[in-house]
């Protein structure tokens, strides 16, 4: 069977989240820098609560020297660090700022420096222009530039649906790009469209097979 199964943690944000939740269980074997807190509230639908974010994977290329090898928009924000000795660290969202704060004490491109200069640093207001030098190669940097634009559009659409008109909520990210794409994504009229189908069906039906 198609066996492209390595590195699943970074392939999907939900895998990062699930892996982070396993940390702390006695059989967990990964190292973490903190507990995930963004989705720990009881009650409600946790899938529905997920906001927009960015997943980042960085690798240690030489002792103490790290580079970004993948970044993409996700409903989960998190960082996975692969080290030269084969170990792996997962950094949940709430721990990322403190890791970035340590960058000033790093003597080379450590984890904090790389995160600060990458897309997640940009989204958290830590840089105004992402550095191409913290990416493993230029194509990764170019892809992240495209992802930055994509994140804005996705966030803008989510904000619009939720009725937000101001800056991004939660203090995670900042944005001054609102309204930029309005000419491209204008709202359609619902003049003759109909809704309310299946309203009389009731709750007994299950659709899965």
């Amino acid at each position, binding site marked *: *069977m*198609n*066996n*492209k*199964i*390595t590195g*699943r943690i970074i*392939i*999907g*944000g*939900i*895998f990062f*989240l*699930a*892996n982070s*939740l*396993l940390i702390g*269980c006695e*059989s*967990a074997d990964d190292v973490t820098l903190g507990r995930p807190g963004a*989705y*720990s509230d009881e009650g409600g*639908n*946790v*899938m*529905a609560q*997920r906001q*927009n974010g960015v*997943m980042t994977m960085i690798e240690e290329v030489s002792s103490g020297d790290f580079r970004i090898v993948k970044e993409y*928009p*996700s*409903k989960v924000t998190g960082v996975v660090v692969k080290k030269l000795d084969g170990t792996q660290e997962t950094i949940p969202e709430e721990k990322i700022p403190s890791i970035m704060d340590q960058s000033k004490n790093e003597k080379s491109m450590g984890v904090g420096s790389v995160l600060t200069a990458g897309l997640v640093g940009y989204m958290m207001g830590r840089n105004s222009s992402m550095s191409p030098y913290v990416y493993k190669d230029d194509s990764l940097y170019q892809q992240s530039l495209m992802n930055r634009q*994509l994140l804005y*559009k*996705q966030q803008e*659409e*989510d904000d*619009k*649906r939720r009725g937000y008109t101001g800056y991004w909520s939660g203090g995670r990210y900042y944005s001054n790009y609102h309204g930029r794409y309005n000419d491209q*994504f204008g*709202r*359609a*009229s*619902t*003049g*003759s*469209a*109909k*809704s*309310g*189908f*299946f309203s009389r*069906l*009731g*709750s007994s*039906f*299950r*659709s*899965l*097979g």
Partner: protein
Amino acid sequence: MKIIPVKPVPDDVYKKVGFYWYASPQDKSYIADELVVINRDEGDAYYRAANELYAMYVQAGQHVIDQKLYPLLDIPPNLGEMIETSWDDDSHFHLLGRFDLAGGLDGLPIKLIEFNADTPSLIFEVALVQWLLLKHNKMKEENQYNNLYEAIKENFGRLRAQHPLLGKQDSRIPHALFSCFEEAGEEDENTVRLIEEIAYEAGFITGFEYVEKVFFGAEEGILDKEGNAFDYWFKLLPYEIICAYEPELAGLLTEILRRKCCILLNPPYTLLFQSKGIMKVLWDLFPNHPLLLETDCKPLAGKKCVEKRTFSREGDNIRILDAGGNVVSARDGEYGSYGKIYQAWAELPTDEEGRLYQAGVFFSYEACGLGFRREKGIIHNQSQFAGHYVET
């Protein structure tokens, strides 16, 4: 067959990732605390079988359309145009489906049971839950045939590439709306939200709206309650249900497709594959094919067989008949109004406790994930899910 015990993942972890339906009645866990052990050859055989079967389904689908065999598949006439419109346009890409297969272990031959092509379940279980079991038990993720999440993500990329307007390099970002019934429960909603999350990571702008609140317009297309129009609509809502309960909506969707306002996921032509009637067509086209079970519209004379309804789900409305035509086992359900097909009995791998194992192989452009359901008797929607471990 070989199964190995594993330490269960804490319920709290399941809840927090959105997997709420892990508990089953009868005081047993829905997730088995054992893994089915398979070897590489067995895994590769499942992979080849699903790919070959999908190619056969495509040929059978074309045959049904060419010969107008919709009555044989129990497909209402008012869905014909929708099916054919999506079939003839490559931008209507099949996102994912799941083959249910008998055999494959203990030397038993792999046989097609059915193809859940329109609204497959088990996505959370195959993609995430069995992977969590590996991680929690310090097993390597390489020891599992499980590429489902990535395959769906890649397929969203193909969907975009196939779109006549959105497939170009400098095109705007596609918008996709995801829906299920408001009262369908956490399983349906979280499954839909998981697919939405995958689409988001694949670079789509996504939204979620309950089916009852979605706006449908022949000119406007498909909109959420704020009036945002979408390029794609993923619905965990079977087409045969649309036709039976809201025929006006079926007409609107046909018009929306005709005007190319929106692309439906899964495409309407997956209804051809979803109908168990197509297994009669497959047997007619590929008689005695090693992956197929003999199927007919009448009981198989002198052979043990299974009576199924064309659009029954989750093991409902199934009767097992012995060679003399006597009912030896049965499950009732709410699908009794659909037509019947009779499929030859296939042996399922069985463990020491007498539980039967049915393999589910997901297909998303290619075979991409394996999981098992097990039960002492007819497998249904509350039968245990068992993950697997590939022995090297």
